[in-house]
């Protein structure tokens, strides 16, 4: 049984090794097929593990492969834990992952670096599985860092464009800020509990569930738990793109669209939610942090949702929508509705992956014309103002987008309706969070409607749009499968059966969730109204569709994403530059050559200041030693006894 556990990780890794070393020789077709096959194999094994978990008595499979690090008190096993939570996520990661691999074969076709792309994609799947399958925080951190690396590599995949390289760097730096929080949280956990294994930590917390916990006689102060959970949440803020660290995700759309679908919509960004749900025992006890988490989630949902109202890039809309939906999940986790959070994570994985892939198909179709005609005049194939009327030309994509969009908007019976509704019901006892989420739900329906109308209805607004063509089979098939999933995904936790709720019970415990008919009806009606409003406003193709729209101050503010990037620039980046250039000027007074830039300047400054100390004269070295000896002797004489 335990060998089975490593297989899901092993398969994609085999793909990585083969494709990395033989990729050039095998050719793009074989590489893509192999990568897809490996991911599908992982999916099959994940299914087998899932069924084993469901029949096993304790609803979990533990597999340990010896001690990974064992020094002094620290004993970290190389252990994996497949329980109801991780097995569900494994299905999403490998299943949606396999579909995206398949789609990528068509999408990346013809790119000279295609084999590298598939290597990254497989490596990502393996890393993500390490993240969710590890039985301790250290292994989770390893997976956490690895997916960060893959994300960096994929965002900057077309690194020859400066913009992409900058986006990759931005994602990397912002995520590092979160990682510092995470690693500090892990250290604090170790200091507090003396272990990093989920099982042992949660056993301690679960035993008492009161403010004063005890481990080996030391009471665990509530403040310590608050600090731990807060630090962990900072990690989640980075990875799951929450306020104030969400700025990297919209830029991350610079990567290939299927990678955006997999990493920046369906799986990696949900790592923060997984981490919080996994640590639910800790968050449950730390009420302050949980309230903070809920508030941050709701605020993020609201702000990102409002930004999405005024975006023109088809992927940017989806990106901000992703941030907004992640806010929903984080808010749910903060409210203690862990099942709802995971439920929304799963349905979101279906419909957002679908939307991204459909958007990729649209972009692909838009590029068709300029590729075929080598047209010199290059228009932006991602700008929705250049689209319109694609409904007839790309029927499969259109229907896929409709299903995904309505699911996102929260219309019954699509999957998004059920999961979002559960979160909103859970927020009923927290008026502020409820209000924010309610507004966001309306925003969501509106921007989805706007996007649908601008892309698919009306008449074509550019040559590229009028000559757009449907994508090939490799791209259509995943769209169809995901459409079905987005349609029926709500069945996972339908009121009445509440299957997911029972499934996750061993991990997150029981909580009163559920279905509230008046709320559901109200929000369905609101979504319908918002969709209708979008239809009315954008149907004629005039509003917002000329390339230089007169943006009012409000919509310009929204279009510029609440000016948050500008704020960071003014508050952090500019002062940093100012400081380094100031330092450069100070250090350069000694007549050193003019500095190059950034760190180079600083380096040269330090060089100028310090290097003369290393004069090359033996006797001055001796003098430094003597000074050291005298200081040391003085220290010893003064401090002994």
């Amino acid at each position, binding site marked *: 049984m335990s060998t089975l556990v490593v297989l899901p990780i092993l398969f994609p890794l085999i793909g990585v090794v083969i494709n990395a070393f033989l990729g050039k020789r095998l050719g793009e077709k074989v590489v893509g097929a192999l990568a897809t096959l490996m991911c599908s194999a992982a999916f099959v094994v994940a299914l087998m593990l899932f069924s084993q978990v469901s029949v096993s008595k304790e609803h979990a499979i533990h597999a340990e492969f010896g001690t990974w*690090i064992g020094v*002094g008190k620290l004993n970290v096993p190389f252990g994996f834990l497949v329980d109801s939570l991780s097995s569900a996520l494994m299905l999403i990661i490998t299943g949606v992952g396999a579909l995206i691999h398949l789609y990528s074969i068509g999408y990346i076709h013809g790119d000279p670096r295609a084999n590298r792309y598939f290597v990254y994609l497989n490596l990502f799947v393996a890393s993500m599985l390490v993240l969710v399958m590890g039985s301790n925080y250290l292994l989770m951190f390893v997976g956490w860092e690895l997916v960060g690396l893959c994300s960096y590599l994929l965002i900057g995949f077309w690194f020859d464009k400066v913009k992409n390289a900058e986006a990759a760097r931005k994602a990397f730096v912002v995520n590092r800020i979160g990682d510092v929080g995470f690693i500090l949280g892990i250290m604090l956990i170790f200091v507090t509990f003396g272990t990093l294994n989920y099982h042992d930590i949660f056993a301690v917390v679960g035993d008492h569930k009161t403010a004063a916990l005890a481990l080996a006689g030391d009471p665990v102060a509530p403040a310590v738990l608050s600090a731990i959970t807060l630090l962990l949440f900072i990690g989640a803020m980075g990875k799951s793109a929450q306020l104030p660290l969400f700025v990297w995700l919209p830029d991350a759309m610079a990567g290939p669209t299927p990678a955006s679908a997999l990493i920046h919509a369906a799986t990696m960004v949900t790592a923060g939610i997984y981490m919080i749900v996994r640590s639910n025992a800790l968050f449950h006890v730390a009420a302050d942090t949980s309230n903070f988490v809920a508030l941050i989630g709701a605020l993020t949902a609201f702000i990102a949702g409002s930004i999405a109202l005024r975006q023109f890039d088809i992927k940017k809309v989806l990106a901000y929508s992703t941030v907004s939906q992640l806010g929903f999940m984080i808010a749910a986790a903060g409210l203690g509705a862990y099942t709802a959070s995971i439920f929304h994570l799963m349905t979101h994985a279906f419909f957002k992956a679908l939307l991204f892939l459909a958007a990729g198909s649209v972009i692909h179709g838009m590029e068709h014309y300029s590729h075929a005609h080598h047209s010199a005049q290059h228009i932006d194939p991602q700008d929705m103002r250049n689209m319109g009327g694609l409904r007839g030309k790309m029927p499969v994509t259109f229907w896929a987008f409709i299903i995904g969009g309505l699911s996102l908007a929260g219309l019954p019976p699509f999957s998004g309706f059920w999961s979002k509704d559960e979160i909103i019901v859970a927020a009923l006892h927290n008026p502020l969070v409820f209000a924010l989420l309610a507004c966001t739900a309306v925003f969501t329906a509106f921007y989805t409607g706007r996007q649908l109308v601008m892309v698919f209805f009306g008449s074509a607004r550019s040559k590229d749009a009028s000559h757009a063509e449907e994508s090939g089979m490799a791209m259509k098939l995943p769209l169809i499968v995901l459409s079905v999933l987005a349609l029926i995904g709500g069945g996972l936790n339908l009121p009445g059966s509440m299957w997911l709720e029972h499934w996750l019970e061993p991990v997150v415990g029981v909580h009163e969730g559920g279905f509230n008919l008046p709320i559901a009806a109200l929000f369905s009606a609101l979504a319908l109204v918002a969709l209708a409003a979008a239809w009315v406003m954008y149907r004629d193709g005039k509003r917002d569709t000329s390339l230089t729209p007169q943006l009012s101050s409000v919509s310009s503010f929204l279009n510029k994403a609440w000016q948050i990037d500008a704020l960071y620039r003014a508050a952090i980046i500019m002062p940093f530059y100012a400081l380094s250039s100031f330092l450069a000027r100070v250090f350069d007074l000694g007549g050193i050559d003019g500095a190059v830039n950034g*760190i180079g300047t600083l380096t040269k400054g330090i060089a100028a200041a310090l*290097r003369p100390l290393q004069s090359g004269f033996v006797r001055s070295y001796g003098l430094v*030693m003597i000074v*050291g000896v005298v200081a*040391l002797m003085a220290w*010893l004489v003064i401090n*002994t006894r």
Partner: protein
Amino acid sequence: MQDLMLILPPLIVFLGATALLLVDLKIADDRKETVAWIAMFLLVGALIAAVMLLYFNRTGDVLYGFSNMILTDRYAALLDIVFALIGIGVFLLTLRYNRVHQIMRGEFFVLTLFSIGGMMLMAHAANLVTIFVALEMFSIPLYVLCGVARPRLDSEESSLKYFLLGAFASGFLVYGIALMYGATGTLDIATMLKQVERGQAPLLLVIGAGLMLVGLGFKVAAVPFHMWTPDVYDGAPTTVTAFMTTATKAAGFAALVRVFLLGPGAFVGSLVSAIAILAALTMIFGNLFALAQRSVKRMLAYSSIAHAGYLLAGIASVANIGQSANAVIFYLATYAATSLAAFGVLSEIGSMNRDEDHGLERYTGLAKRNPALAWVMALALFSLMGMPLTAGFTGKYLLFQSAVSSGLNWLALLGVITSVISAFYYLRVIVHMFMKEDATVAANNEQYYVSKPSLVMMTLASVAVVALGLLPTLLLNMFA
């Protein structure tokens, strides 16, 4: 007889080196590679002897011999293994480098062997006499080795600088031992430890130990006794530098572990705090100076100073002495593997260009010219930086953890911060290798091949770096 068995590894090296001195006379100048292979053969013998010491003493007892002058325990046997492996690694590099740089001489190998023997003896030291004799035994051959490339002036300069300052530092060491003897009436470390444990730590003993710290701090390049390091490492032939960064450091720390961590030093608060301060200074200045270097070789010299700082943090962590000693020895092994990999690349570059210029531009575009070298170098630099999944990370983690458990949170934090700073200068080399093109160098120049023995060494070192990063327990289990 049992006494001899206890120091079998250094014994094999010493006797073998003496015999090799005679054999060398009969070997023609153009066939000195034979001497190198014989020397490696001897080291394999010593390696086997050390493994046997480890195997037959599975309980990890401390066995004394030669009237308590020497001892054998796990640390001693493990360090013997480390020294033997370093020696073999360096000799594999010399096959090409020393030939190209015309220092393929028999005495090179004999002197290196004598030095290794002294280092092994240091690992077995149980008495301050042994410490002193072993220290000089490995140092004196090193003075000569630095100048082996004469009449090249920078080699001679590095040699004389090392010699004068080394002798100067020895003066402090000897005087320190004299004062410790004066305070306790014994030269035996265990007896001294017993006295200190009983609370007898007169100022004379503390001062003496402080002076010993100066002498040993010099050997391991601790700030402010480090000034010789960059000049000597820079001027010495690269193969000698490779030997010094790895082996001298390990030998110096072996002595520090015996006298300070496992010996009387750990029981004197003022000494421990002084070591912690030295560690902090060493981390800070090593990394800051490294930041300013344009030559990769000199940068690595400063980096080795910085690593001495991290190791000193382990010596200053006295709350759980066994754990700290494990961490220090583990770090020495990982640092040896990492540093050998890096210096393997440097020696190959030096052979390709037939000079000792290691400016950054020599590394520009290396990934295109010699992908294998570039990847080994990148791995080594990541490990020096302390990237997770490499040996360097595990080593640093263990050291900082023992520092934290000894209440030296500030020192561990400083270690983390300086490690982050170090990323700047390590990454600069990686950027030059991978992201810049060098138009001036023809890619198909026939000199740009990597010699087989060096490649074998670098591969093994890289495997060790990754293996110790992924599965540190492989080695750590041997301590338990």
